[in-house]
């Protein structure tokens, strides 16, 4: 994933002048709402012009991860599973890390996160492994395997859940409070899934190359936070200025 930046900008994160009318209007409305709530802050030149585009990388040597032995239901699940608690690109980019702003900008608003996300269980693995959902959003848990899975989680802020799930049945679980929740399967010990309930819209999930983008940011100084299930949380100060998008590299020390 080493595509030139201008090309990515033209396909994914479209610059402001090319936005569709509907999206522009909703963004304006949100921005207006935020603006009305925190109108004592200095007004930025353009409330939604800035963006952060960066990469999360590993600092230090990558830990050696062993393949996970499958001890049960081998005929459906396979003999072993790839360790997915830390997945790196060849350049050292970390996949499925979650990046967010510690304090979202007042009066500015990014595009809202999709209120419903999907997490499938396929060949006895949660796919995707990490899902971001806004507070008040829902996750549709699916089961593509021809056996029973048992969703089990004991979050601290949200209510716990423990549901048996046959193939083809969808279990929808709402998440009200922002937090990072671990989801397991009682029947298959190696299965891990993570639900990140976002406090605000400035959350991003890194792709296979470890890249992410936060859009709709007014210029200013921000604290970026990045979380990865194995490496924990790392913070970094970043200033969003005229340069658009602001490049940033978040390094997570190996441990």
């Amino acid at each position, binding site marked *: 994933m080493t595509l030139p930046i201008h090309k990515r900008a033209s396909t994914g994160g479209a610059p402001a002048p090319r936005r569709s009318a509907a999206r522009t209007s909703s963004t304006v409305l949100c921005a207006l709402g935020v603006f009305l709530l925190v109108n004592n802050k200095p007004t930025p030149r353009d409330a939604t012009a800035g963006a952060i585009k960066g990469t999360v990388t590993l600092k230090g040597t990558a830990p050696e991860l062993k393949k996970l032995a499958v001890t*049960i*239901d*081998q*005929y*459906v699940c396979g003999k072993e599973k790839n360790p997915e608690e830390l997945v790196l690109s060849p350049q050292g980019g970390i996949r499925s890390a979650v990046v967010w702003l510690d304090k979202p900008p007042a009066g500015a608003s990014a595009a809202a996160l999709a209120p419903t996300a999907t997490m499938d269980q396929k060949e006895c693995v949660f796919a995707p492994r990490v899902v971001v959902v806004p507070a008040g959003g829902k996750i549709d848990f699916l089961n593509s395997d*021809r*056996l*029973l899975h*048992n969703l089990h989680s004991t979050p601290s802020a949200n209510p716990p859940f*423990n*549901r*048996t*799930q*046959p*193939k*083809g*049945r969808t279990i929808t679980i709402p998440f009200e409070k922002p937090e990072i929740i671990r989801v397991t399967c*009682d*029947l298959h010990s190696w299965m891990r899934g993570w639900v990140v309930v976002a406090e605000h819209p400035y959350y991003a999930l890194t792709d296979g190359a470890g890249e992410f983008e936060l859009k709709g940011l007014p210029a200013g100084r921000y604290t970026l936070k990045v979380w990865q299930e194995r490496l924990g949380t790392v913070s970094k100060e970043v200033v969003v200025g005229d340069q658009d998008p602001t490049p940033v590299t978040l390094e997570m020390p190996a441990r």
Partner: protein
Amino acid sequence: MALINSPLGAPVRAFARIRASVHVKLLAGFLLITFLVIALTVVSLRTVAETAREATLLDQAHERVVWSRQIEHALAMQMHFTSMTLLSQGEEPVSLILRENNRFNDTLARLETAAPAEERTLIQAIRGAQDDAMATVADIANAVRDKKLAEALTALRTRQEPIYQKIETLVGSLVSAEESRMAKLRQSLAATRRQSMRLMTGFAVASVVLALVGGFIISWSFILPVRAAHGFLSDVAAGRFGGTVVVPNRDEFGALAEHMTWMSRELHRLDEEQRVAAATLRGLNDRLALASRAKSEFLANMSHELRTPLNAILGFTEILLDELYGEVPANLREPLVDIQTNGRHLLRLINDVLDLSKIEAGRLELGLGEYSVQEIVEVVHASLRSLAIEKGLAFSVRVAPGIPAAWGDGRRLTQCLLNLAGNALKFTRQGRVDIDVSHADGWLTFKVADTGIGIPKEEVENIFAEFRQVDTTITREYGGTGLGLSITKRLVEMHGGRIGVESELGRGSTFFFTVPLHADGGPA
């Protein structure tokens, strides 16, 4: 040979008639056997492979039966744990139900992959029922967790039990299908084994029969011509040429037989030619013998006729020299003595020729009678002593003591010894001449040794032939007719004896002859 005359003889002759070399025929035989071995190997390997395949199928069917049993067990356990869950309402039995249900799912997936096509429908039916069962189990588990016991119980009664019964029936029919499949496979295995047994036995019998028949035909197709050749060669060895060898073979043996026939014809032709030549020679020989006898008779007659006037000449010469016709003038005496000497010489010559021709004409007969060896030796010594003295030679005789009176022609034996001793004296210039007679085992040996000129080795063989002396110049120097040794040899042989000589050129010769003490089987 009895076998050959049986119906088996026909294929032997047919095989012999095949126009191919022995090498090719033997090779073909070996190749046939090799082919049989290969065929047997291929069949065996195929049987083994077939057996192995069926055994594998059997194993697989057995494995599927085991899995089916596991499914049944998992089903029973689920029911059991469901009841336990309803009783205890705890999380632990719930997870046990789920565990058993997944065991069912996993084993079923295994079974589905391994099952033969015709069982797929049945397995799909189980699958469908199991999907329902899975949903029901999940519902019951979740209901128990939600403390909705009544709902869970209803689900158990109205949904789970019928489904489980259905699954049980389906699995039961699957098991019985697998078991009947196993039974069929076992039968098939046994059939394969029996068939391979029959096949192997068939091959073994066919191989033995083929080896026997093939061996018989091939070996006899080679033995027959050899026997024919053997018989034929025996005929040839016995002198019966001109036969033919007839063999059916068109191989090397056939060629050999043709060559032998040709050889036989050649031998026959040569034999005939030789017979004709021999007959011709025999005729010629007869004629020659006839001519020779005529010559000998003529000579005998001639000698006799010659002796009469010669005796007259010698008689008158002697009368003249005895001066019965008056005194002989001194100047005539010498010529008269010369006439007498030459006359006597001529007489001896004529006598010798007469003797030889008599012998050759087969008209000489020995005058057998008792004689004394001592007497013979003394006569010879007396006759030749003057000659020895004249030549200044030592001349001694020795007769072994105690020789009994012998039987033979004393006169002729005297002639023999006289001849040998006379020759010895004649051919010796200085030294000595010794006569020695010994007796052993009924045989008399007369030996005359001299220190004369000797005889060259190459001449020893010819010395006893007529008119032979070592050198023609010798005749001129020493005189003699050259018939003496020849006559002596004939006379000795007429006595049944043998004559010989040992000689060294320039050192002397030893002539000897042996005669039986009692010649011609005379009185002992």
